[in-house]
């Protein structure tokens, strides 16, 4: 079975002019595609804003665009995995320590 081909690119979007400031946004483009002309095709595209660079007349500032919801959900998923891991270790240790051993 052929696996989808995945690509991640950082693409600069068109500059946005706001007064004297110039915003230069960048977007993370994540694509996954499976191309088989004889059987079919599958394409998945995800566009995530990465950051903006704010250019003033005299200086430039880089500002990250965080995805707060996804960060919180990732932390929750890590916590869930940690709970499962620690609980499994406690159960395994309990079974190991209380199992009848040979020679005793």
């Amino acid at each position: 079975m052929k696996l989808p081909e995945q690509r991640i690119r950082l693409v600069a979007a068109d500059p946005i002019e706001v007064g004297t400031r110039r915003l230069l946004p960048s977007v993370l483009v994540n694509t996954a595609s499976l191309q088989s002309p004889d059987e079919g095709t599958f394409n998945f595209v995800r566009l995530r804003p990465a950051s903006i660079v704010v250019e003033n007349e005299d200086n430039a500032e880089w500002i990250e665009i965080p995805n707060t919801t996804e960060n919180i959900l990732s932390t929750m998923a890590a916590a869930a995995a940690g709970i499962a891991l620690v609980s499994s270790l406690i159960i395994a240790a309990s079974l190991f320590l209380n199992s009848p051993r040979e020679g005793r």
Partner: protein
Amino acid sequence: MEAIKELFERLDKVPEEVNVNAVFGTPETIDGITLIPVAEITYGFGAGVGSGPSNQGPENDECCGDEAAADASTAAGEAALGAGGGAGAKARPIAYITVGPEGTSVQSIVDEQKIALAGILLGFWAIGWVGLVLKTLSTRHS
């Protein structure tokens, strides 16, 4: 079949021609502060085609009269062809950029409903694991 292949080749080029400017909305100025909405955009599509031998044949159509049997015999050598596809897209606001006299900043938009649902699921998950651990420990010690 050639038309379907051509369609697939055109669809395969879509990820290369993504318009990244769709992520940033149109700037709106309110009371001297310019707001630029920022969204995360996800879309996907798929299509498939398949062919196989036709199950219409003379042996299956003996009951249907001479005319139907003649039609079936002409179609017996042809392959059946089927195709299908689907597509979906989603845009979710994740932040907005404010540009004002005090400077430029990014304000995050938190999906509280999704986080609340995930929190409830995490709570049930934790309670389940703690219960399993307590049950194992109590069974072993009794």
